[in-house]
């Protein structure tokens, strides 16, 4: 593949990853809080809506940023757009 085609693929996959992670962010942040009153159950001693807002969402956010960094750095190398190793 020519460098140009590799770059196009890189940008395409970047956008796809970005959209997916943003979608996940949206669902966890707004989806879960919208139904907070309805999901009034207890899981492992915790009220579910409270735990989701106080801890669950933070875990997902951390996963999102870690996954993005890891996947993109690998993608950079695969498509030849990674910064030169110093």
């Amino acid at each position, binding site marked *: 593949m020519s460098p140009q085609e590799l770059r196009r693929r890189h940008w395409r996959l970047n956008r796809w990853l970005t959209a997916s992670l943003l979608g996940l962010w949206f669902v966890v942040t707004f989806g879960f809080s919208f139904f907070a009153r309805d999901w009034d159950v207890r899981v492992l001693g915790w009220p579910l809506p409270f735990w989701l*807002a106080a801890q669950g969402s933070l875990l997902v956010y951390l996963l999102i940023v870690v996954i*993005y960094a890891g996947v993109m750095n690998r993608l950079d190398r695969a498509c030849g757009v990674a910064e030169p190793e110093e």
Partner: protein
Amino acid sequence: MGRRGESLRFFRRQLNKVYRWYTGGFLLFLLALALLERLGLPRSWIGAIFLLATVALYAAIGIMSRTTDEDAYYVAGRSVPAFYNGMASGADWMSAASFIGLAGTLYLQGYNGLAFVMGWTGGFCLVAVLLAPYLRKFGRFTIPDFLGERYGGRWPRLLGVFAALLCSFTYVVAQIYGVGLIASRLTGMAFELGVFLGLGGILVCSFLGGMRAVTWTQVAQYIVLIVAYLAPVAWLSVKQTGSPLPQWEYGQQLDKIAAKELALATDPKELQVRRVYEARANVLRIKLQDPAAALVGDRAEAESRLQALRDRHAQPNEIALAERELALLPKDEASARAAWRRELEDSETKSGALNGMAPHELPFAGDPKGSGAQQREFEASRWNFMALVFCLSIGTAALPHILARYYTVPSVREARQSVAWSLFFIALLYVTAPALAVLVKYEVLYHLVGTPIHELPSWVSAWAKVDPGLLSFKDVNGDGILQLNEISIGGDVIVLATPEIAGLPYTVSALVAAGALAAALSTADGLLLVIANGLSHDLYFSMFDPQASTARRVTLSKVLLLVVALAAAYLAAQKPADILFLVSAAFSFAAASFFPALVLGIFWKRATGAAAVAGMLSGLGITLFYMVTTQPWLRSVFHVSGPVRLWWDIQPISAGVFGVPVGFAVMVIVSWLTPAPSAEVQAMVDRLRYPWAGED
């Protein structure tokens, strides 16, 4: 292996060594002070030592990092490793609001306070995938830089500077105010003096070394603040549940709180107290219908009571008490109205269940299955929660002082990693704050409520004496036992009192204050730098004097930093009203002004300069309009009259929820209506999207 790579690796090893020594030294310092306290060192000394030692430490780092080099002054030489940039960003991000205010808000609002937790952390997901890597590839010095290069012309940059100044300046005034408060409380000095001492602390960190000094002091400040926050909470947790990890355990405390809340709602003593406050509220409502007459009546009553005491030759202290009561009456109708309105609010809160607080784990207010009014209340509460989370998230991803941090890492790869580290270091505190709120509420509900007043723990009376605004209680129904509705707890006291609640020595209380100071100083530094650099680099250099030498630009930055800091300190010393609102408003402003322009600039080549200008103006305009017409303080400042008309029941604090979509829509429409950007600009946008596209 390149020279730069090798020197960066060496630098990283040096950093690890330096900060390991720093952390070790800090812990030894704590132990030494705790020991000295045991041996009798008075509290005021301990407070002063903490204040001076920590500020001296930051000053030392600041002076060691002094520079006149442009790269070092604006972006710390782009040599800050991702891990350390994460810590610096954490400190930069967490201001006194996070450190002191968050746990307090969570205590008072329960689930609904979690909007702040989700908003202020979730925003970093947006930073990671939409902004940080691309800004780092852009690689200049400031955010208006990006707007100027991407959109051309001078208006996008100018608007960017204006928006950055607006957000950062309101935010920094609030931080300096916080610094003054903490400094004065630690040492007992006057508030104004505390402000200027804090100002000195801020300046020594940032004045000489710019971003380089600010970065390394922020790392040091992060270490202080995270130890100061986590240690007391862990100790309190051990005291309550035996586990030092409250974040893991506090689910069971939530259970117990819910049970107690249920019991208190029907407790006859609580109902008694509530009726007393309701009666008071009724009296006050009648008084407020005609304050002038009521004041005259009050005064006559107090005077006749005093006269009666004098006539029957009562005890001198009884007479003195009656004289004081007469003297404390409001002087005129205006102050009477203000005072009684405050009292009415207070009485109305205290006549409600659970001292005006919602059940801790209950999401939103109202009842989706209740009456029409209750359903409407539920909907409004739910939408406001989500609107607030929206504004705080988008605002997080748009505040210039955070975005600027990602200019300082060595590479795009490290920029992405740095956002992850930032979120990790921030999450350490943000996952602990709800736990702290729950632990303290448990303490209040189980160890204070229902206890005879003379048996209350010592920390209650100690804090009530220090500041009745923060904590006070009154035995309103005269039964000698404390009911929940008889206490008034201000949110800020939660974090400050935790060491004492946990039974820790005063050294830890001073540590907490030092941590709050570190949080406020670090954020203030970051904000001041944005303001000064915006004025010197974006306004002066880019627009007035592009021939200015590096030395002149850096010097101008330093001078402006000083001037702006003094202006902010002056304003902070006036104790402006509604500081918390101003800080939250800064998020909505930043979100509406910057977010659409930045994101579309990166992801949409067709976005034009005219569209950016239109988008920024309309987004910010709508947000300002909504706030000025609905927020009480702003309405009084701008003399807005007429009824408050909320759009879909959204509170003014979340005005950004209208500004952001409007900004996006306007940008898209105007872009289509104006000629596409030049091939050069489009190529520039293209280059932004790859960490390395064949350049060198």
